[in-house]
């Protein structure tokens, strides 16, 4: 008995010591998140209930910022600005999500199941990664010489006599915004789906094929369910990026298309911080609801 107690003691002491040191090692990271993430979010929440005039923020409780956001939203006949903006953003979200999912799944499937050597997989994966190293703005403006009025696409279409005057909807339109989103963020879909697919036991596919499943059936009944985690993680990335975006919609929409991010940006430009904060809190709530709904599909905690 005594010896067991002794053993337990010697085991317990260094463990506690190591726990303290682990805690200390995590402190710089934790403090950074506390100072630049948690505190700012808390302050945004508080300020969203504050008053303001043209010159300053007034620390007095009011609900007028939220009232202003939903101004006119009670009416059934015409849709208010906020709902319209959210509908437009959600529309982009849905389209971009669908396109990046199909494209990302196809590319990941090709890399995971059709490329046979690990070396080749690494090379092709790197090929997909390299454009990611250039800035988003550059990748956006690089569409101008292609899609502009006198761009390559229009030149080619005119030369082939498909159209007799340049297409205007190619650039600074919903189309170019979606194109830029897909261009910028499909990568975020490929990585987690590829990761999930690489963990699938190859013998399951063989078993399905041996039992007479067609190629489509293997994908639908085996690959798709088993890469669900990757799909959900990728979806969370893409959806949260598109929901909060103001840059892509701004540059590719020719500053003409509304988005929630843009409203917040414009309001901070006019120093209407409490109004911007209220919009940010509502956006946060919407994004959290979407993420929550997505995580209902799969328990991420179990998979990590």
């Amino acid at each position: 008995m005594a010896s067991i107690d002794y053993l337990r003691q010697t085991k317990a002491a260094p463990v506690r010591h190591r726990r303290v040191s682990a805690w200390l090692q995590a402190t710089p990271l934790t403090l950074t998140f506390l100072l630049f993430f948690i505190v700012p979010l808390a302050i945004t929440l508080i300020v969203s209930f504050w008053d303001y005039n043209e010159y300053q923020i007034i620390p007095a409780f009011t609900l007028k910022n939220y009232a202003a956001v939903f101004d006119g939203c009670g009416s059934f006949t015409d849709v208010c600005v906020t709902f319209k903006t959210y509908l437009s953003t959600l529309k982009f979200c849905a389209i971009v999500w669908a396109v990046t999912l199909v494209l990302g799944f196809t590319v990941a499937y090709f890399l995971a199941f059709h490329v046979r050597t690990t070396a080749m997989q690494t090379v092709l994966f790197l090929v997909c990664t390299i454009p990611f190293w250039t800035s988003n703005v550059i990748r956006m403006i690089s569409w101008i010489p292609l899609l502009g009025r006198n761009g390559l696409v229009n030149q080619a279409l005119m030369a082939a006599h498909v159209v007799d005057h340049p297409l205007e909807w190619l650039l600074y339109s919903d189309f170019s915004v979606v194109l830029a989103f897909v261009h910028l963020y499909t990568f975020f879909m490929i990585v987690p789906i590829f990761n999930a697919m690489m963990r699938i036991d190859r013998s399951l596919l063989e078993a399905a094929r041996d039992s007479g499943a067609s190629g489509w059936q293997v994908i639908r009944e085996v690959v798709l369910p088993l890469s669900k985690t990757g799909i959900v993680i990728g979806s969370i990335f893409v959806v949260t990026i598109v929901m909060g975006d103001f840059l892509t919609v701004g540059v590719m929409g020719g500053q003409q298309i509304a988005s929630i991010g843009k409203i917040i940006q414009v309001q901070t430009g006019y120093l209407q911080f409490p109004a911007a904060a209220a919009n940010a809190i509502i956006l946060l709530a919407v994004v959290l609801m979407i993420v929550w709904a997505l995580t209902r599909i799969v328990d991420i905690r179990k998979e990590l």
Partner: protein
Amino acid sequence: MATSRRHREPRPASFYWLALVFALFVLFLYGPVITIFILSFQGPEGGLTFPMRGVSLHWFAALRDGVGDVDIWGAFGRSVKLAIAVTVLTVLFSLSAGLAFRRRFRGDTAVFYVSVASLIMPSIIVSLGIGLTFRLLDTLIKTVATAWGDQAFADDWTTSMGLFTSALGAHLTWTLPFGLLVMFAVFNRFNPAYEEAARDLGASPWQSFRHVVLPIIGPSVIGVGMFGFTLSWDEIARTSQAIGEQNTLPLELQGLTTSVTTPVIYALGTMTTVMSLAVMVGGLLVVRRVARRRRTAAVGR
């Protein structure tokens, strides 16, 4: 290679379709960037689109003299300094936190969830929050200074927002989650037997870290640094509301997209991309040299 060739079965038809999709996807990724790379060598008479009117370095020369009234080279310097600071802090903080997460500690799940939340939080919200926090801090500083009777200090105080305060913090909320996740992946594959061997041979915790753990994970640590640099170098969304008076290069570039109508903007794009690629290639070369030195050391022994 020889064995795999012997067992190679014929490719199914679907392979060729998927390969075509993949090739088109790669073309889609690279096509636009290559276009502006080519167009940045546009002749002096040339415009924003094809055709090329001669080939020249005219627009790079124009870039050297600055674009309009924007101080491009000042912004360039600020971006480099900020990116270096972010790189160093990202490496140190995520390496240290990665070591911590190998064991359980109080609040580890909370820290993990906060990191993930920081990663997926819409950037405009983070940016606005940090901007607001520093503005309120300014008000607080002025109020306190006035209350203490130091009116001159309160009047002179402009802002606590800046490159190495709010902007640095904003960048870290973006780079640290990436760094931490890479460290998770690294330590998941790390064999603790090496460390135990070092400890059994009498190494102190620092010695076993310095001479055993660090050399093994070294390439990944450099990878985290490369990630940190490029993420910071190109960052716009989180910096936008949290930078104060002086902009970074990507922010200036974003401002120029609406006003500049000459290929000088392509030259600027090419330059920043080359900078990013140079850091990446440099990082990869360092990784290779470290790996080679370790291999020769192992052979020598």
